[in-house]
């Protein structure tokens, strides 16, 4: 049974879909067995394959996930989104911010002309045309069909060219040995990492940890949803209020947008 499961896992998604149509019952049976087998026999191996084909297969090409951050609702003295991300994904500081992982951080933007200050979180902006994906020599940086930009830890060689290319300083290089990793967020010393938009939650129908934490804190400053669905709350809000993307001059069409920033 184990052998047949792994051959199924190697098939491309299109082939899998065809086969499934032909022998639905048997496939369903095997797949349910696969879930049990992989969870009980080799959870580490399965979950470490976080990037690449498995992550691609989990994505729904009909969706594009995004965030809308209302900076008016974001409190300058609150960083619950940052601590929630850290707890959820198992990254934490070692006391040196310059080399510590920062999947999400709070920044203050001050309008040079008016002096107005805004506090807001910045994370991977999940660009439609991500420069990190363009420059990655091995293809370790990739974009899922649903717009989430990830790093495949198996083929990242740690060259840091993506960090040179990212306009948002959103990526971190793992400078120190990592311990106590979360099985859903594999990390590796010497590789690059960034916000995953909590794909483990999103793929299971949930929302990213930062969104949940912001709501729990009573701010409701971060709205998560499908940018392709005109009926989603995020799409309606984007229609209703003026918003902008960071580095609009680069025309990257990020999945993260900011409202009331000006």
């Amino acid at each position, binding site marked *: 049974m184990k052998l047949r499961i792994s051959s199924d896992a190697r098939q491309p998604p299109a082939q899998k879909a065809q086969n499934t149509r032909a022998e639905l019952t048997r496939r369903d049976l095997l797949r349910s067995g696969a879930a049990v087998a992989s969870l009980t026999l080799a959870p580490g191996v399965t979950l470490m394959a976080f990037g690449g084909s498995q992550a691609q297969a989990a994505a729904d090409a009909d969706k594009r996930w995004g965030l809308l951050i209302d900076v008016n609702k974001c409190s300058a003295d609150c960083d619950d989104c940052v601590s929630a991300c850290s707890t959820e994904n198992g990254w934490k500081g070692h006391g040196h911010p310059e080399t510590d992982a920062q999947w999400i951080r709070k920044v203050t933007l001050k309008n040079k002309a008016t002096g107005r200050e805004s506090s807001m979180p910045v994370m991977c902006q999940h660009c439609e045309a991500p420069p990190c994906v363009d420059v990655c*020599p091995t293809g370790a940086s990739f974009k899922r069909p649903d717009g989430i930009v990830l790093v495949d830890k198996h083929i990242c060689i740690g060259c840091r060219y993506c960090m040179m*290319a990212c306009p948002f300083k959103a990526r971190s290089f793992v400078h120190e040995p990592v311990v106590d990793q979360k099985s859903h967020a594999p990390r590796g010393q010497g590789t690059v990492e960034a916000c995953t938009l909590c794909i483990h939650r999103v793929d299971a129908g949930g929302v990213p940890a930062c969104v949940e934490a912001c709501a729990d804190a009573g701010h409701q400053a971060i709205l998560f949803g499908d940018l392709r669905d005109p009926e989603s709350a995020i799409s309606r809000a984007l229609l209703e209020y003026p918003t902008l993307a960071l580095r609009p001059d680069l025309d990257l069409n990020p999945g993260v947008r900011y409202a009331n920033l000006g």
Partner: protein
Amino acid sequence: MPERTIYREIPANSAVWGVAILLGAFVAAALASVVYVEHHGHIVTGMSNQIVWGLPHVFAIFLIVAASGALNGASIASVFGHAPYKPIARLSAVLAMSLLIGGLAVLVLDLGRPDRILVAMTTYNFTSIFAWNIYLYTGFLIVVAVYLYVQMSRQPYIRVRIAGTVAFLWRLALTTGTGSIFGWLAARPAYDAAIMAPLFIAMSFSFGLAVFILVMNALFRLSGRRIGNMLMRRLSHLLALFAGAVLYFTAVQHLTALYATEHGGFERFILLQGGHLTWAFWLVQVVLGGLLPIALIYIPRVGASRREPVIASVLVILGGFAQVYVIVIGGQAYPLQMLPGFEIASAFGDGAIGSYSPSLPELMLGLGGIAIALLAVGFAAKVLRILPTNLLDANVPGNR
């Protein structure tokens, strides 16, 4: 024209062994640094999430750029048919390959996961200039090896010329690729400029020739052979010309950026307020590495003419390192502008000038790359007939 030059391996005398052992020690120190950094992580280097490329990249890029320029002698001989350069064409080709190997070694050994080099060699993303460069670098080694073979097997001149022309075009592509690593980074105000490619080509002409002059002199001295003043004068005049070209492209680079208001902040930083980076730019890169060697070569002086090309070469190399340092470190130290018209601040150094203090392992890795390159060229000179026995004026073809 009949070949008059006699090429012989250098002898294994005690001086050669002494230099080889010294270089070997540097290579060993570099490997120890790699093990140390890989064990503890890059936390033991001066690099951070803002300065992601540090001193190893400065050494690697200098060596890779110089590799392309070390081919100058061979190109002038084979492509442009200048007879006086023919005796140095073999050494020129070998040095080009050696410098590239040294530079690539540093680049690979500084990766977060150097053990995954096979992944880099087998998994490509063709929208990445880095991936193209892997082909350009390995291709350069193959093309120059073929070029060296046709020279050493004394093939008809037309074949040498064809191989030399391919190598010449390839080196232009190679340095275009290296410059474009920076030139195509649209996000950073320090880069994002098409002039990076021609600037790097000019840098390669200059740095590579300077390294060539020093290595040739060292090998001739170690093997007790002599070089005539006329060849040295030719090479040094060429060096002054190339050093001038680097200054020219540097001036255009900064004048263009100064014209755009959005780049004004970065230019103010590098040209005026960047502390040691500003000093490295003006004093080391422009004055010591550019104006002074040009003056040394072009302003006639009485006596000491034999030492001037060597001194000028040392200065050009010094200025070259400063230039690559200012490009690589200065470009990253200047903060990213997240939103035009806004100032940014955070606990993560947003909006602040990044600081970088290179650590000893980084320096040793970089020096190890130089040692690898020099060991490789020395070894080649020991086992291959690439070095003429005599380059005194009377023995160099085409001298008048």
